[in-house]
């Protein structure tokens, strides 16, 4: 007699399982679990919009309420992916508008979104609540106006660093007076002024507003009133933080900030005038997150601020903080988990600030909970990296950018292999690593040997040859995303580890030594991979197969090849051809 457990009970149990991994595991247990799970999955994450099609998603999961989709490869952030590459969300929105009338949330990253798309979203989903567009592009403030006007229950509108065609600030006035549902509004990336009175009214009538990130055009004088209308704010991004020195403005600000008892996160601070910083002192003690990456203030002012933020968990700051400021951070912020230090002058030839590897060493010593690091500096040594690694074996993300490509250990003039080797050897939980400086194949040997939990690796101007890539592909068991530029890796390593590519989300290689012939072989052997050759010089078929291609993007997919590629991208098909397109 077959033992059976009522479906409803299983469904109930599954409703407590939210992680994608767990859900996927559940669906593999048996057919009936697969069926039950697919009907009750509400949230889906698609890491590569071309890995699966909207149709496949909809067929399998008919009751989705929340979708998160990512498009372009990460290196698109640095202009390495040409315009027109793809990542269009429109086909997804069209399909979902028919299949998911109850869709509530759309989160997009590095995708191309049009105004038509936004209008379609605003009109198709009656209960639409959350729209997050991170590093997206292709839309204008007109699209935002549709969203504001039509989404009755909008809770979150977050434009995180998207490139928006800023036609006017008038779009914000399209929020109807009846809209009181906003919980989160991030318009920091917009250039033009939004209608301030509309903003003020919107903010004060939304009692649940938790996060508000203004754009630079909102002047400091307007901030006190805004804050008084939303004392419940947990996260605030200021506009321009400067004004003529006026005591009454300072005290008004001080007053307003004192009233924000729940403030945990601060950002913005464009054009910051140090004299106005004391206004935020009342909230410093409660802050867990501080983003000063646009604050062009000097180390003494930064230090004064930080010395009051004893509970800080996350700090993003410019290198104006200098080693001195990082020392203070190390002494004060014992709960620090994440540190990002950005370059104030990334293209300058000479060092403009006194920030060196010492700052990072101090923080690694002083902050026992530090797990996530992004650090731009101009010099590094193996010894410091070893120290950091030994201090912080709990690191999960370590991204170091030594600004000069192929910089050696400044003390010994050697490559930085040993330093990064120490990082991967000591930090057993490391999931993300970005390398820089002069590196030989040695470092990849260490990575392949030790970095067993590594999921994402970024390589630039490194390595000696195929062996380096081979170490990584054969050794890093958890690798999902690999992105490489300007490194002499080529065919042998790729072909020897072809099967590995199906276990990864994607591989990006640009300005490396991969030949077209190897791409063809990969495309032939592995039908579940899309092998896309990006080359500006016309079809790769017109050159010898041994010719190196410019850029390569390989990703696994169950959706087959895509058909929205522009002229300069060729997908190698199963016959190993990259067909000439019909003009």
């Amino acid at each position, binding site marked *: 007699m077959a033992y059976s457990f009522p479906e409803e009970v299983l469904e109930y149990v599954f409703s407590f399982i939210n992680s994608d991994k767990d859900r996927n595991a559940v669906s593999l247990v048996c057919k009936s679990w697969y069926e039950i799970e697919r009907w009750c999955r509400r949230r889906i994450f698609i890491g590569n919009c071309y890995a699966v099609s909207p149709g496949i998603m909809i067929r399998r999961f008919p009751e989705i309420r929340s979708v998160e989709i990512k498009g372009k490869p990460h290196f698109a952030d640095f202009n390495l992916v*040409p315009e027109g590459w793809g990542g269009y969300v429109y086909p997804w929105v069209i399909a979902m508008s028919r299949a998911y009338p109850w869709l509530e949330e759309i989160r997009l990253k590095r995708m191309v979104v049009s105004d038509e798309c936004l209008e379609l979203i605003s009109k198709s989903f009656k209960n639409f609540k959350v729209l997050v567009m991170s590093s997206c592009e292709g839309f204008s403030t007109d699209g935002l106006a549709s969203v504001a006007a039509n989404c009755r229950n909008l809770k979150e509108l977050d434009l995180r660093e998207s490139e928006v065609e800023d036609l006017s600030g008038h779009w914000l006035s399209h929020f109807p007076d009846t809209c009181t549902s906003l919980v989160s509004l991030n318009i920091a990336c917009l250039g033009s002024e939004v209608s301030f009175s509309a903003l003020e009214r919107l903010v004060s009538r939304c009692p649940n507003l938790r996060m508000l990130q203004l754009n630079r055009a909102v002047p400091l004088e307007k901030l006190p009133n805004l804050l008084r209308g939303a004392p419940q704010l947990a996260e605030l991004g200021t506009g*321009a933080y400067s004004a003529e020195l006026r005591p009454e403005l300072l005290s008004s600000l001080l007053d307003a900030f004192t009233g924000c008892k729940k403030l945990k996160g601060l950002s913005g601070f464009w054009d910051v005038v140090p004299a106005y910083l004391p206004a935020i002192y009342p909230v410093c003690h409660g802050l867990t997150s501080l983003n000063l990456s646009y604050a062009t203030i000097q180390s003494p002012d930064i230090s004064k601020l930080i010395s009051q933020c004893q509970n800080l968990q996350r700090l993003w700051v410019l290198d104006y903080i200098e080693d001195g400021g990082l020392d203070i951070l190390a002494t004060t912020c014992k709960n620090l988990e994440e540190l990002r230090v950005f370059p104030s002058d990334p293209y300058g030839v000479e060092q403009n600030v006194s920030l060196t590897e010492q700052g990072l060493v101090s923080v690694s010593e002083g902050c026992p909970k530090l797990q996530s690091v992004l650090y731009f500096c101009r010099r590094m040594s193996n010894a410091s990296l070893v120290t950091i690694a030994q201090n912080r074996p709990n690191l999960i993300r370590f991204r170091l950018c030594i*600004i000069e490509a192929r*910089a050696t250990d400044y003390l010994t*003039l050697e490559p930085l292999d040993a330093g990064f080797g120490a990082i991967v050897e000591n930090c057993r939980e490391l999931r993300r690593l970005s390398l820089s400086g002069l590196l030989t194949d040695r470092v990849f040997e260490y990575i392949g040997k030790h970095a067993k939990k590594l999921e994402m690796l970024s390589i630039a*101007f490194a390595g000696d040859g195929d062996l380096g890539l081979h170490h990584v592909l054969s050794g890093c068991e958890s690798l999902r995303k690999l992105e490489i530029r300007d490194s002499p890796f080529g065919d042998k390593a790729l072909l020897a580890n072809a099967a590995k590519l199906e276990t990864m989300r994607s591989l990006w290689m640009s300005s490396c030594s991969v030949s077209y012939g190897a791409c063809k072989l990969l495309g032939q052997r592995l039908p579940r991979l899309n092998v896309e050759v990006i080359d*500006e010089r*016309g079809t790769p078929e017109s050159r010898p197969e041994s010719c190196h291609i410019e850029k390569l993007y390989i990703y696994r997919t169950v959706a087959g090849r895509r058909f929205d590629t*522009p002229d300069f991208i060729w997908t190698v098909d199963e016959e190993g051809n990259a067909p000439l397109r019909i003009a």
Partner: protein
Amino acid sequence: MEVVSILGEMKGKMKYDETELRLGIGLPGNSNKAVKNNSMHVSSGATNVNGKRGFVETTNVDLKLNLVSSKVESDELVDQVADSKEIKNLLGGAGSTDSVVKPPAKAQVVGWPPVRSSYRKNISSLNKAANKKGDEENEKVMSSPMGATFVKVSLDGAPYLRKVDLKMYKSYQELSDALGNMFNSFTIGNCGSQGMMDFMNESKLMDLLNNSDYVPTYEDKDGDWMLVGDVPWEMFVGSCKRLRIMKGAEAIGLAPRAMEKCKNRT
């Protein structure tokens, strides 16, 4: 050709290793230090390192300019070859009257260092604003709209466009360097000491158009196509809507306007 032969001499002196790495962009690497296995070699479409014959032949966009002053020549070459101090010494006399004291900007590699374009855009305008402030803390800093000054750049013959953010650069020379890197060994030549294209001289202008393969042009707010370098940099940034690097022959048609302006100025 003068340019190529000087480059050839320098290559010999610098003893760059031949390498497999394809794009012959001078990198901001440590050429002062020990020779590395993978140092990029400087290419102006000359040596073919790895069988890329197709590329060199079909899309060589070397701009064959008659560079007029040797001072400017040395600056150009210095920019192309990046790490400059040694090179300036090598060139000795040619660069001795150089009034520019600071080291020239390193040739920018696309996407390095890896900062997001939105971030770069913000930071550069913030730094400019901060510099303007000087000692006056209470001066209200101009917050110019952060609307993108991204313009599309097309190169005749290249299948895809690029985008550049004009606010990232302070002069035509910087823009030219950036474009050079994007389109690979392409230079807009001959910037005078004010950083403006030397269009003031009619004969120099004709030389430029007659001798060069490619000429940068732009579409301004009124929809007119103009030669890049006509106007002061700031004005250019404010009025440029898109850039097109066209073949010199086609640009001849634009010359009369530039000529008019030359005449009007003298």
